[in-house]
């Protein structure tokens, strides 16, 4: 027990701070990837062939690229070699790279989740929208997407859960987050390695399980009754 209390003394304040970084990454990247995902989904269901090709191409390329590679691309290539920075603050800069990489990567999954929602909307809805004179964008905005998003809550929630856990990959972009701190703690305190591992495992459960519960509740509440 004594070794545990010294561990708390050493790292007690750093653990919540590191998890807070993961939460901020997750929140910002969820917003970013959702916005881009909606755009991609619109491309993929649009009547314009070149936009469909663009959306399909993006999804297939990004979905099949490991997130670590996107993350390293930001740091090794964009920062390390091209020397492009997004913020004057040294550490904020890496945080922004990480949010961009997470957003780009998960946008592909968001897009597919939304598209699965679109498939739950009966074809008659789209035909009716066209029949009253709505063009593609107004029909998508007023008729298709509101129903599609309600039908896509569960897969969207899954994507957010995956995204939250993937924020640990931001360690590759020099962001001081939970997995990096876990490494540091194991390096210095191998005597209590199991306790350290459990701390972080439970920490992620505490973040991720509520997202799952919220998703289930929301998808029940807002499901489109047909």
């Amino acid at each position: 027990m004594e070794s545990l209390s010294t561990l708390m003394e050493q790292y007690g304040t750093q653990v919540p701070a590191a998890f807070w970084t993961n939460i901020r990454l997750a929140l910002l990247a969820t917003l970013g990837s959702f916005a881009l995902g909606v755009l991609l989904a619109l491309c993929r269901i649009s009547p314009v062939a070149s936009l469909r090709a663009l959306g399909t191409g993006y999804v297939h390329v990004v979905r099949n690229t490991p997130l670590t590679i996107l993350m390293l691309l930001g740091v090794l290539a964009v920062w390390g070699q091209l020397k492009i920075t997004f913020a004057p603050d040294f550490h904020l800069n890496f945080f922004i790279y990480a949010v961009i990489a997470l957003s780009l990567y998960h946008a592909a999954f968001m897009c597919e989740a939304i598209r699965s929602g679109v498939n739950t909307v009966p074809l008659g809805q789209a035909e009716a929208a066209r029949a009253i004179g709505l063009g593609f964008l107004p029909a998508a905005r007023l008729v298709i997407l509101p129903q599609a998003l309600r039908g896509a809550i569960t897969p969207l929630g899954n994507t957010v859960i995956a995204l939250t856990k993937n924020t640990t990959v931001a360690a590759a972009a020099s962001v001081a987050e939970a997995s990096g701190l876990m490494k540091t703690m194991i390096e210095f305190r191998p005597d209590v390695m199991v306790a350290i591992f459990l701390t972080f495992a439970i920490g992620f459960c505490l973040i991720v399980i509520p997202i799952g519960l919220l998703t289930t509740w929301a998808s029940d509440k807002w499901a489109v009754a047909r």
Partner: protein
Amino acid sequence: MIRSKFLSVTAAAAAAALSLSACSPSSSGGAGESSAAGGASGSSQAGGGDTLRIGIKYDQPGLGYRQGEAQPTGFDTDVARYVAEKMGVAEDDITWVQTPSANRENALENGEVDMIFATYSITDARKERVDFAGPYFVAGQDLLVRADDTSITGPESLDGKNLCSVTGSTSAQKIKDQFASGVNLVEQGGYAECVTYLESGQVDAVTTDDIILAGLAATDANQGKFKVVGNTFTTERYGVGIPKGSDSCEEINEAITEMKESGEWEKALQANTEGTGYEYSEELNSGDDAELESCS
């Protein structure tokens, strides 16, 4: 690569959780009894042993480096070969096992390896779980800079500079604790990434133990581009990790002493850091810090 490292950390931690709950007195006997390597004869204790499983790093040029199934190279492996020979194990009978930093204690506790030569600093926290023989080398944290850089002479001259180290390493933590205010620290998954930034100019120095830096600078691709500053500011005693209660400690210590006295030690050190202008700290390696651990 970064990701697989992270996975191995979690896997190692999970394995530790299992081993501690299932069979805690695993440190009682020698390493051989719980051999995890299928087919290996297992018996590996000092004296009559015929094979040895030695844990090394695979990704640290100059210390422990291995490509595919080739014979590993580096100072750690040279010392390991010498010690093994003194214990009556020929080079061909050594099984090399990769032991990344976070996995070293587990590998010894689970009997995956008989001993570890992997830039393994002797610390009290680690002694809770493993025993150490040696040290066979005393390193110190230092800085690697571009060969034409004369502005950085030590950690004090880092103010306002960008510095690179490896996530979760003791070196990174040291900088955070003591020099963080004026230094911009980039943390990466490996030193190879740090070196690319140093070359492109995005960071001004890379920091870790001096001999690791010398090994990086000595690779063919980096020949002549970088130099080790040579102003160490910590003491890292590289020990030989062995399972708790192992009886091979004395024998390893004897072999290390013999290697130093015979001149083989110095030869190996020079061969692995050639062309970098690196000189190991004689002060550290002959003083109190180089005193061998007393075997229990």
